[in-house]
């Protein structure tokens, strides 16, 4: 599984580098302008972000001792996966269709917001899990 993932990541990195080189070469031949090359690269980055984030909720990790911890991990992964996937798609969409100056700012805002949501919800989930562990009663599955 780890080997498969590493191979996939290396293939993806090679694809990005190849695409960047190809776009640069096309630019040098005057086949495309610098704006189109930039757009194409950013759209690819957005789609890659969406593809990676799509798999985030599937990476459930090992089973935890408490049902509440499993439920919280699952919900944190789902929130993170959804927000980052939608952000990746929005990023790609903005770079594909919006004016460059707007896409530059809006795409950053979209991805930054998704990161804040993902990390904020993840942090809150972790704190809630720790707090429920301190409770004297067994509240497994109810917290």
């Amino acid at each position, binding site marked *: 599984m780890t080997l498969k993932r590493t191979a996939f990541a290396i293939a993806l990195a090679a694809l990005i580098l190849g695409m960047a080189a190809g776009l640069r070469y096309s630019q040098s031949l005057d086949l495309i302008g610098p704006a189109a090359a930039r757009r194409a690269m950013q759209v690819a980055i957005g789609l890659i972000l969406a593809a990676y*984030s*799509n*798999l*985030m*909720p*599937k990476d*459930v990790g090992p*089973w935890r001792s408490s*049902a*509440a911890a*499993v*439920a919280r991990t*699952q*919900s944190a992964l*789902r929130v993170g*996966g*959804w927000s980052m*996937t939608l952000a990746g798609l929005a990023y790609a969409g903005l770079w594909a269709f919006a004016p460059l100056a707007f896409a530059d700012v809006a795409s950053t805002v979209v991805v930054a917001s998704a990161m804040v949501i993902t990390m904020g919800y993840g942090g809150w989930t972790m704190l809630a899990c720790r707090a429920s562990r301190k409770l004297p009663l067994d509240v497994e*599955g109810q917290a």
Partner: protein
Amino acid sequence: MFKALADPTRRQVLQLLRQGPKSAGELAESFPVSKPTMSAHFAVLRAAGLVDSAKQGKAIIYRLKMSVLEEALMEFSQLLGLNLAQRAGKASGAAILRKAPNK
């Protein structure tokens, strides 16, 4: 994966698992089907990689293991299934009305 999502019972199992991990018994209680049928549904979901299971004592605990795309597909098929069911309901209602004698 499409086969797993095509069945309404399996989709409902996935909906229930969204709330958190549940035992096979807890899940089976929510459906008016026999335990072997439920086991077959769980096996299909496991084979499709949509759920993950672990044995805790005598119970088997299930948890959701769906990607964003799989979840979106589930929602879509749920919506489509609901519409189809509603259409089928309307169609059968209309057929009953057609068969019924006019008063």
